[in-house]
């Protein structure tokens, strides 16, 4: 198999250019609107007697997760409409490049633009605030550990919405949230039932242990410190390593399978 049939840097760059260009107007309008809103919030906060130390971190978090997950949900809108799907699927690039281009845009692309954007806006806004109000909010620090941890969490959440974007024809964002909620609920019920069966002798009622009702406290379970930390470690490893690669891989295979079926 010829590797250039799967990925070619020249074609990928061209595809990235095409994908960015096709949404450039919406992106610029959104960027302008976000900049204006951020400045307004920063000016109001600076005008108050106690400027905020967390303002830009909060804005960054909301933008990254709110904006990023909405953008990710819409990243494959093109393959769900007959007219645009034909154009996109027949573009001479491989399925992998089509997948990878959108993945780059909605992961590293969006996260870095948000990071740089919020940093630049924070410096500009606070410069203006200092001139006008003689005081300013704490500047955004793009190098803090928590910012980068947040970005790593974003990648995990993004992967689920990326799969939703490929899988659902309409209302990608809402449907993905619904599915996540259902999966979470299912896991909770299964875990509760599992605990109820395994630790049956601890329960007084259906879900009651001693004085604690409904919620089971970890420390009430007969787990040793070692086994508990082992469990947490395992779950953490699973969280960081499994969902994102799994959802991205499924998304790729789903893209390969896309057909334009709604016409004879």
């Amino acid at each position, binding site marked *: 198999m010829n590797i250039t049939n799967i990925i070619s840097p020249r074609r990928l760059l061209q595809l990235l250019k095409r994908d960015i260009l096709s949404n450039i107007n919406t992106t610029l309008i959104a960027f302008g609107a976000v900049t204006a809103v951020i400045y307004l919030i920063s000016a109001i906060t600076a005008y108050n007697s106690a400027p905020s130390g967390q303002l830009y971190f909060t804005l960054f978090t909301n933008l990254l997760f709110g904006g990023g997950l909405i953008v990710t949900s819409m990243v494959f809108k093109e393959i769900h409409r007959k*007219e645009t799907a034909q154009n996109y699927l*027949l573009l001479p690039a491989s399925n992998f490049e089509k997948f990878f281009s959108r993945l780059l845009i909605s992961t590293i692309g969006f996260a870095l633009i948000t990071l740089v954007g919020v940093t630049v806006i924070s410096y500009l806004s606070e410069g203006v605030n200092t001139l006008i109000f003689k005081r300013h909010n704490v500047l955004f620090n793009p190098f803090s550990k928590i910012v980068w941890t947040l970005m790593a969490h974003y990648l995990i959440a993004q992967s689920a919405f990326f799969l939703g974007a490929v899988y659902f024809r309409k209302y990608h964002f809402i449907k993905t949230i619904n599915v996540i909620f259902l999966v979470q609920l299912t896991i909770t019920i299964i875990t509760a039932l599992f605990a109820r069966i395994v630790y049956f002798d601890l329960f007084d009622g259906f879900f009651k242990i001693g004085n604690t009702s409904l919620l089971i406290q970890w420390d009430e379970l007969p787990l040793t410190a070692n086994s508990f930390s082992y469990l947490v470690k395992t779950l953490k490893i699973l969280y960081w390593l499994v969902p994102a690669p799994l959802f991205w891989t499924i998304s790729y295979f789903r893209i390969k399978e896309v057909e334009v079926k709604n016409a004879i």
Partner: protein
Amino acid sequence: MINIENMDFAYKKTKLFLNLSLELKPGNIYGLLGKNGAGKTSLLKIMSGLLFPNTGKVKVNNFIPGQRNPEFLKDIFFLPEEYYLPGLKAEKYKKTYAPFYPNFNENKFLELLSEFKLPMDQKLNSLSYGQKKKFLISFGIASNSRIFLLDEPTNGLDIPSKTQFRRIIASAGTENRLIIISTHQVRDMENLIDPIIIVDEGKVIFNESIEGVTNKLTVKKISEEPVNGTVLYSEKEIDGYKVVLANKDHDQTDIDFETLFNTVVTNPDGIKSVFSGGDNNEHN
């Protein structure tokens, strides 16, 4: 160049193609005709990799279209009946999309845009339906793709544009290029398409060159209503009956596509018998 063997295709439970086989060679402008819902568009989509067959073999330029290999895609251009053009001007569109086609001919593109009198300073999504189609035809020809699939290309074109279209397609039909035109507008395609493929009820029921048609069939005008079974097809006209017969006397008459299509669809067995060597004139 295009080889389909024993292909089945269905939309959920609606079977469209059953055991369909077809071989198409470069250097031809094929006309793909069929009734509404016969599957012309679906067949083009299968050839281009937008739909996947359920069973059977489909090979285009030795590629499996459904894999959508970039080497395959750069050599195929599909103009669908309904299409999308982004809010870009012609020049920007060319800069964005032309690099995907290594053999793109910029001069040819500009020449065709000028021939179709398309505005360069207008965004493509604000053009009329016909103008958009002319733009895509220009881009497709300039892409120098070896396979050119056109679905109802003359729909929405005004009369002068249809003439331009015929001229442009005729000149684009080189010996290493295969063009397939799926259409209902058979009159627009006279003197352009050859051979003619007719699909009906999930099968290719006719695949012949114009020369073959002229050699095997003849059209006559008679005043009396033909007796059942003596002709392949008859059609009442103001001054009598137009009938299609097996060409036993080696006459050289032209048969228009509409009459040919009606003959094939209403009397497929009779046509099959004539083209497979028999000369029965059976009327439905």
